[in-house]
């Protein structure tokens, strides 16, 4: 229940800049995901919030209190490690009680709070089991419970789902989300999986190469990527980006995509070279559509079908629901993109236009 403010936060390791001038405010009770590929600086940011790393420059404030130099034990931060860092040589109960004991809480108080948190996390039946050998989702709950029991103001989660197999992730995601709702604590969640970020976070901070690229709600980030990196990174598959030229004609402003044809009318603030972006899901088969590309591969995955499209110099994907009749491999696929779904990016700066 704390607001975290990062101001011009940066970290250098020698010549290497892990994080450069990060400005981000995480509101009280907010669930923010730090999203980006490995090496983007998201873990560095989190470690600095936790106090494991000292910033090279800039400041972190919790509710206005500067945290620089405050040792991690006194920051009131709960941390859930990638592999949970459960004390496997102890029982579940001992794990849960660890923080309370360390802080010198009285015995009866410990018993009470451990019972409480165990109940909340449905860990009561296994309180006296040894932590080694418990299943992953129990370990996750235990890790959260171990941190939560000392009532930290902030929860930091470091890719907690990366060691979990895909089938189980959905379960764990929803569990995690509901836990966050119960605790209503400020949570910072580090992940490289856009799906996790999209499904759980209130806001997503997308990072790459030590820079914060965009902060916004999942939908904002999805619908209005600030640049081509965000556009490609969010969504599966990511946004199609075809290079083209803005041309003006009688039917309004269009983007000339060369061999693929000319797009329908778009709203463009500038002319010249652009990247023509559209989500694969927005592709509408249209025998009379303005765009045409050759189908190089058809991927049928249950409810959806993914078409891989090529034309000289262009590659794109289209996601159709499986009801829609699809052309065969090698055939030409004609389609259109609704004007509202088109996103244009500057070809040089790759920023959104």
């Amino acid at each position, binding site marked *: 229940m704390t607001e975290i403010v990062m101001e011009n936060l940066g970290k250098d390791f020698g010549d290497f800049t892990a994080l450069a001038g990060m400005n981000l405010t995480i509101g009280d009770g907010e669930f923010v995901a730090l999203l980006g590929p490995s090496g983007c600086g998201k873990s560095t940011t989190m470690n600095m919030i936790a106090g*494991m790393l*000292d910033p090279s420059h800039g400041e972190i404030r919790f509710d206005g209190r500067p945290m620089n130099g405050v040792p991690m034990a006194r920051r009131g931060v709960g941390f859930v490690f990638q592999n949970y860092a459960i004390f*496997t040589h102890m029982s579940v109960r001992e794990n849960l009680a660890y923080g309370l004991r360390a802080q010198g809480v009285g015995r009866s108080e410990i018993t009470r709070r451990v019972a409480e948190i165990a109940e909340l996390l449905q860990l009561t039946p296994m309180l006296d089991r040894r932590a*080694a050998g418990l299943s992953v989702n129990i370990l996750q709950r235990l890790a959260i419970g171990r941190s939560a029991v000392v009532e930290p103001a902030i929860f930091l989660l470091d890719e907690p789902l990366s060691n979990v197999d895909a089938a189980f992730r959905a379960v764990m995601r929803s569990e995690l989300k509901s836990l966050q709702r119960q605790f209503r604590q400020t949570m910072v969640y580090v992940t490289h999986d856009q799906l996790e970020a999209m499904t759980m976070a209130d806001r997503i901070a997308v990072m790459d190469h030590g820079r914060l690229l965009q902060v916004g709600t999942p939908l904002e980030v999805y619908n209005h990527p600030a640049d081509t990196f965000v556009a490609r990174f969010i969504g599966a598959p990511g946004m199609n980006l075809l290079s083209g030229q803005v041309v003006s004609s009688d039917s309004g402003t269009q983007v000339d995509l060369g061999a693929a044809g000319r797009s329908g009318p778009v709203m463009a603030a500038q002319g010249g070279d652009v990247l023509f972006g559209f989500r694969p899901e927005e592709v509408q088969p249209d025998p009379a559509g303005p765009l045409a590309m050759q189908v190089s591969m058809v991927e049928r995955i249950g409810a959806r079908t993914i078409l891989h499209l090529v034309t000289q110099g262009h590659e794109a994907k289209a996601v159709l629901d499986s009801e829609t009749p699809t052309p065969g491999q090698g055939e030409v696929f004609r389609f259109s993109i609704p004007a509202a779904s088109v996103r244009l990016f500057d070809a040089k700066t790759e920023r959104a236009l």
Partner: protein
Amino acid sequence: MQRSLSFEIFRYTAIALFLALSLIPTAWMLSMAFKPIAEWQSSGVDLTWWPNNPTLDNFRFIFGHSSSDLIVALDRTAGRPILASLLSASFGTAIAMTAGTAAAYGLSRFGFGGNLPLALIQLRLFPPMAVMIPVMIMWAFLGLIDTWWGLALIYGIVTLPFAFWLMKTFFDDMPREIEDAALVEGCSRWRVFLRVTLPMMRPALASSALFVFILNWSDYLIALLLTTRDWVTIPVYMASLSSSMTGQLYGAKAALGLIAAVPPVIMGIAIQKQLVRGLTFGALKE
């Protein structure tokens, strides 16, 4: 993790204190090795801590160059004992490592030799002195007394337990998938062991071999009882470095001691990294 300044001060002070004490014997050996005879006196009022007139005479002396007549010229120089130590310790290590690695693999992968872990612990636990009489008789019967190969054989046996235990922990740790993959490729088990497993185990082999070598290299008691003339090892030879002129030839002993430290140091430096990993005995598995 950041540590406080006071901890850093404590750390350096504690290490400095420990080293100050633990380096005394080594420093003394270093100092003795370069002292001329006049400064050997290790006792009394005119004790010298550091050679006033450093000299290489002690080294020249043990290799047969008598620098002055006052020391009895050596009838045997240190060359041969050094060779004896090198040969017996190296081949002893080779025996222990070969038999130990093979057996460790056999047990770790195929469950053969279930009796070996206990038998080998007992073998190591048992004081060699207590079996030296039958061993002497056996060795004499086999013509192995006073030979470097006889010494290598007993070294190989007494250090076999270490080779076995160390290698077993490595094999237990090693994922089987890689071997299985090679098996699927159609390699025979034996080929997999030689061509896949052993090369992967090179760091483990190196650190185990160093440990075993140091144990063999350090032996005094066994060589004392099993060698007589041609193949006495460094520690046994060292005992003979004394004369009526000057008492114990401490300078010569120190010089030889310094030389004796060279092979372990060289090997230790060569495989410093693996050594640390090798000595965890697989105890860190979850």
